């Protein structure tokens, strides 16, 4: 056992961090800076990171869950407003069915974000939501018989999360089959594990970014003639936030590794545990960060709610605390009372 990052993984982490430092939104207003957003998106496209889960010559993904989680964490740390998780999960689905990769594609999920949207035949019965959909022209959905279908998307709008856009899909929307092969159950399980690992990594980055924001504020904001970071009550809030972040990091690391390294059910169990842990932590941490900011923290201009909103969405995507505690219980065969 040696769970240190390899030198390649550290290099990847550092190059993502550099891009983030250069092009992240440094303020809420910067979210509207179209020029920056375009540069960011172009840089991300050029990096090739969104294609890390497409197939290599042997049909395996170019990179494991660990590398994509590294990217997801770093992007979230800077509240980066360019798509990543959606396109990566779409590419991973295509690879599993041997379908050719497609650009500008994301995934669609149920309105509560907890599960992939399912189309019935050639149409949607229920409303759904394409997530992480800025610039996406299409979304992948599963069909009821286990196949994969694609639907064209209209323009994306801002939803709960100010950094990642969505497209609402109305009932009756038409879909076109991508493959008539059904996705094996094990693939759905592994793909779900990847979704949980990536959303956990995203929340981890969000927590790191949020704690850093609050720490800087605690050093700069003075009351009673002292930096508020010198008050023990504030210190303990931030210490708890830091500790919860570190616990999430450890659980998320194993989840990311497990995606490709463990049997599908074990990967899912590791991912569910990490997701439940990180989802509880992320809300606590982001709420703490708002509290440490006081009145400012409750204004739209403060980045604190940008982190909280992003955490709420990543938490709900593939299910938050409740559904994942249920997965953990099912794994230990103590699921539902019979």
């Amino acid at each position, binding site marked *: *056992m040696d769970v240190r990052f390899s030198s390649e993984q550290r290099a990847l982490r550092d190059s993502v961090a550099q891009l983030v430092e250069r092009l992240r939104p440094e303020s809420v207003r910067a979210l509207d800076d179209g020029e920056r957003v375009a540069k960011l998106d172009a840089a991300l496209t050029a990096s090739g990171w969104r294609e890390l889960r497409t197939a290599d010559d042997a049909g395996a993904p170019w990179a494991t869950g660990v590398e994509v989680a590294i990217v997801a964490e770093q992007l979230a740390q800077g509240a980066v407003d360019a798509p990543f998780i959606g396109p990566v999960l779409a590419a991973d689905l295509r690879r599993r069915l041997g379908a050719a990769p497609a650009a500008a594609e994301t995934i669609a999920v149920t309105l509560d974000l907890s599960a992939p949207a399912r189309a019935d035949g050639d149409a949607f019965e229920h409303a759904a939501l394409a997530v992480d959909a800025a610039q996406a022209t299409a979304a992948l959905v599963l069909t009821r018989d286990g196949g994969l279908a694609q639907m064209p998307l209209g323009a994306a709008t801002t939803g709960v999360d100010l950094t990642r856009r969505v497209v609402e899909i109305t009932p009756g929307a038409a879909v076109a089959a991508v493959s008539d092969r059904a996705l094996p159950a094990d693939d759905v399980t592994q793909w779900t594990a990847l979704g949980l690992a990536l959303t956990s990594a995203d929340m981890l980055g969000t927590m790191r970014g949020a704690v850093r924001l609050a720490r800087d504020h605690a050093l700069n904001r003075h009351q009673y003639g002292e930096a508020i970071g010198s008050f023990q009550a504030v210190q303990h809030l931030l*210490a708890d936030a830091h500790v919860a972040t570190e616990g999430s990091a450890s659980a998320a690391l194993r989840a990311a590794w497990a995606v490709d390294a463990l049997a599908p059910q074990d990967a899912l169990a590791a991912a569910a545990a990490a997701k439940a842990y990180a989802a509880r932590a992320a809300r606590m941490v982001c709420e703490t960060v708002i509290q440490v900011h006081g009145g400012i923290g409750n204004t739209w201009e403060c980045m604190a709610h940008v982190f909280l909103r992003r955490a709420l969405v990543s938490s709900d995507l593939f299910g938050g605390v409740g559904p994942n*505690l249920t997965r953990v219980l099912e794994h230990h065969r103590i699921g539902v009372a019979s």
Partner: protein
Amino acid sequence: MNFRDSPDEAEFRLRLREWLATNTPDLPASSTSDDYWAAQAGWHQALYDAGFFGLSWPKSIGGHELPTVYDAIVDEELAAAGAPPRPSLGYLVQGMLEHGNDDIKARLLPGIVNGRDRWCQGFSEPEAGSDLAALRTRAVPDGDEWVITGHKIWTSYSDAADWCLVLARTDPDVPKHKGLSAFRVSMHQPGVQQRPLQMINGITREFGEVTFDGARTPATDMIGAPGEGWRLAMTVVSHEREPGELGYVARYKKVVNELVKQVRADRSAFDEEPVRDLAWALVEVEMLRCHVARRLSERLDGISHGPEGSVDKLLMTAVEQAVGHAALSVGGAGHGGWDDTALKVYLYSRAQSVMGGTSQIQRNLVATRILGLPA
């Protein structure tokens, strides 16, 4: 980046698993029964004699000089076998390795590692808990001996100990952190008395109080230089904060495994709340296992942890207390006078946020030493 065993690790794991299949004692947890302590020394010695204890320590003191990740394997296998955790002595060993001279290391450490010499740690005093440096126990030189007078409290395993690592003031004229020195003191002498203290869960062998009234120890048993006591104490407590050092993952895992079995046997007897508490305990223990793997791997780079130990201690405390809550809500308090093991597990878990430095003190350290907030 791999959570899996290397071939050597896998071979070691298999060997340990086979050994445990026939050598796992049927011992209650130390936290719930005094019976544990009667057999603890035997368990330690058996583990050591079979080559499964002190894995990462120098061969010269009885260790195996293996990477620390082997300790994580031991913890996992002990938990899987339902065996007691490995004795947690790493803090004593690390403290002496770092601060003891060659004579101390050669003379004292082998007996600690092989489990033949039992030690306790006499730091805290009635008036010096969190503010440890305020301690009042005095050590005064007398020929080639030191004479020790003072009162230690909450001393774990004082009733089983042959020796005590005593922190005492040797120089009252310098600032309080600078006047402390550390000694090995025999518990078997007229000047030493120990009295067990009963814990809130009823057990009496977890800790006690010790009075030193003119107790004597040879000058050669001072550990570290005069005035080095504070630094030694900080080394000791920082290792005491590391879950990898303590082998607690095995202890927690053993409890949750038993709770899972209990629920599985009669799932419909449990409603949402206890099952959810148990789910959280499972999630927390799994997190800690990953966290220990992460920390032990970082040590392969030669990183030894300073303030990060406080993060680990706070995580470990949250895990122990989540397990305690799950035990209470799944096992029940035992109102009918039947098995109160769950209640004992729960009540014991409250001590984790006090021993080894309280959670408030750990948060102070995280805030000032890691986050860089004003001290």
